[in-house]
């Protein structure tokens, strides 16, 4: 699958000629020693994350085993988004292995920037299928990276929305269990909320949090994604969801609760300034960090509440893919197999606290289960349940190519409504209009609503 470059050919020829001339015979080449990609240098882009720290720690073993040198560029999520998009759009092969951000998967896969992995998986010379065990990836985590049967990335991170909460505060308010519905949660938050302790806290990426309400109330971003992308923010269901969600932000969150990054939201829980925290597992799990809080023994975890139309926890997934423009595709695949492999993921779960993993075998592992069980809350099971639920297909709205700009507009709308700049009806009407404009500008045929 890889050609030989002229420069590489000339270099090899020169070395061979020199060895012949001096009478030196190489005793055994690296390729013969089972290292066909020895000397290859790979570059990888990756969000700054504990999983990447784990990769770096164990990278020397991989490099010694394969002879491949890997440079991992860790960067913040906003930088990663911008940089990967630019690198891919320009056809740059600077990065061989890249992180497939699931909300950009529609655009990147659609544009042909991600190399299909099936030829690598199906080639017995390149892959030990039993060891890779593609079926071990939970379907919900794999879904954003598949188009039909074609796989474009292997997932390493799946973040599922869950709730971390203070059992003592809810019990004091008369709740033996965490409320099962969003409306019950709102009632509980109203009872608990004081100037000192907020009833609820979440992070500021509102296009990730709001859909927990939106879908549960029967709404969606689009009419029938991916077939019909007509925005549906002005439906009665969407308006009801927006009303309840923005009330939680406006009335029962801490001061400035519309704009809290995950660290601050976690710190608020650590200091006992909020009764519950709804966010991705990767963030929520940190509220019981005993180095940062003395309240860990009063916290527990549970699934997100449901709405009248059911339970729709959200799932964010990130994977590793081969850049179509890479000149080292086989070596890149060798690295991906290792990086998303069972051994690395299990090690990461046990040693780096990487609970938001994507392999069912890791989440079923007894040691992992024990490590991530807190006061009766089995976080691994909670996470696995969300992945399975999301595998039913409702997350497809996030992987349409036009989601990112529409999602950004959702954040603006929710912020405007929650901060009182506009009311729910006008805010959602304006969101609908803007979303229609975004879709039409992108050349998507929609059915304008009024």
């Amino acid at each position: 699958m890889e050609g030989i470059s002229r420069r590489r050919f000339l270099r090899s020829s020169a070395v061979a000629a020199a060895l012949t001339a001096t009478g030196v015979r190489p005793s055994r080449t690296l390729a013969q020693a089972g290292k066909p990609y020895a000397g290859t240098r790979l570059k990888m882009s990756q969000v700054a994350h504990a999983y990447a720290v784990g990769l770096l720690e164990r990278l020397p073993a991989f490099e010694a085993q394969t002879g491949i040198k890997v440079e991992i560029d860790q960067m913040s999520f906003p930088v990663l988004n911008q940089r990967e998009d630019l690198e891919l759009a320009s056809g740059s092969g600077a990065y061989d292995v890249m992180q497939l951000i699931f909300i950009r998967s529609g655009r990147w896969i659609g544009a042909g920037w991600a190399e299909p992995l099936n030829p690598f998986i199906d080639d017995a010379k390149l892959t030990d299928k039993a060891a890779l065990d593609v079926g071990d990836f939970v379907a919900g985590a794999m879904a954003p990276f598949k188009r039909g049967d074609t796989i474009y990335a292997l997932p390493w991170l799946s973040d599922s929305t869950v709730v971390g909460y203070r059992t003592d505060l809810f019990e004091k308010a008369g709740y033996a269990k965490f409320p099962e519905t969003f409306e019950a949660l709102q009632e509980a938050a109203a009872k608990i909320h004081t100037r000192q302790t907020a009833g609820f806290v979440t992070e500021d990426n509102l296009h990730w949090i709001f859909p927990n309400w939106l879908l549960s109330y029967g709404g969606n971003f689009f009419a029938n994604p991916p077939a019909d992308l007509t925005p549906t923010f002005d439906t009665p269901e969407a308006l009801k969801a927006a009303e309840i969600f923005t009330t939680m932000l406006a009335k029962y969150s801490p001061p400035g609760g519309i704009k809290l990054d995950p660290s601050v939201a976690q710190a608020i829980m650590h200091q006992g300034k909020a009764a519950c925290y709804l966010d991705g597992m990767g963030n929520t799990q940190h509220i019981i960090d005993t180095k940062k809080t003395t309240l860990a023994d009063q916290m527990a975890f549970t699934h997100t509440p449901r709405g009248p139309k059911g339970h729709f926890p959200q799932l964010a997934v990130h994977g590793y893919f081969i850049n179509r423009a890479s000149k080292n595709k086989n070596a890149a695949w060798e690295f991906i197999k290792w990086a998303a492999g069972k051994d690395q993921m299990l090690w990461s779960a046990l040693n780096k606290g990487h609970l938001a993993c994507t392999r069912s075998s890791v989440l079923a592992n007894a040691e992992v289960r024990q490590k991530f069980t807190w006061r009766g809350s089995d976080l691994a099971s909670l996470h696995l349940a969300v992945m399975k639920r999301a595998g039913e297909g409702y997350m497809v709205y996030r992987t349409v190519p036009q989601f990112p700009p529409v999602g950004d507009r959702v954040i603006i709308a929710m912020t405007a409504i929650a901060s009182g700049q506009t009311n729910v009806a006008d805010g959602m009407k304006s969101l609908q209009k803007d979303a229609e404009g975004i879709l039409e500008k992108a050349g998507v045929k929609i059915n304008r609503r009024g």
Partner: protein
Amino acid sequence: MNSPGHAWKVGGTALLIFVVLFPVFFIVQMSVRTGLEAFRMPPTLSFTPTLQNYVDLVEGKFIRALMNSTVTATSTTLLALLLGVPAAYAFSRARFRAQGLVSLWTLCTRMAPAIAFGIPFFLIYKELGLIDTRVGLIVIYLTFNLSLVIWMMRAFFDAVPRSLEEAAYIDGAGVAGAFVRIALPLTAPGLATTAIFTFLLSWNDFFYSLILTRSEAVTAPVAIVNFMNYESWEWGKVAAAATMIMLPVVGLSVVMRKYIVHGLTAGAVKG
């Protein structure tokens, strides 16, 4: 001296200083707090300071980013002055056809926001192999700093009476001699001001560093953003890095403040 008016002035000045310096104080105190202390509510003034955030930065890759910032900003400043100051002198003293047009065109890189030039520069740099190199950043910074140097220094040269140089010509000096021995020393405060502005523009650049670097030439402003991990933001490191970025600029400004004040007020009371 002790009139109520004086007390108001002192109080007002103190308030103004407090308002202006509060963000700096906030960042510096946050940089010596632990992660747990950083967001304690209500904030406490009594805490045990720690240098751990700085230790983490020194042990990580941030120092390399800081070095990249230092090299690119310093080189850009020197090159921009080396090329821009003689050009400004020429615009001030020489008379040639289309002078106004040429002078205006030197501003073309500042006629649109940086993002408008971002993609073309990226594509050109990709072909030239200048992505993720210090040289690449220096060239980019030079393109938009040169016009600043030319336009700022031209105004300072315009304020120097031509008769001084004409006297030098009579004494046998050439154009270069008059420029170096007469005009340049008289515009020293302006030179210092221009140098600092040029340095600051390069030092604080985020956009070009973001799109034209990857890991080798990444500068401090972009490196700071990379402390915003996917799971949580490392505010302690962000604050420590921000403090380290501020220090050289504050130091430079303190050392050169006399020239800066002279430069900014040059000609203010002249007719």
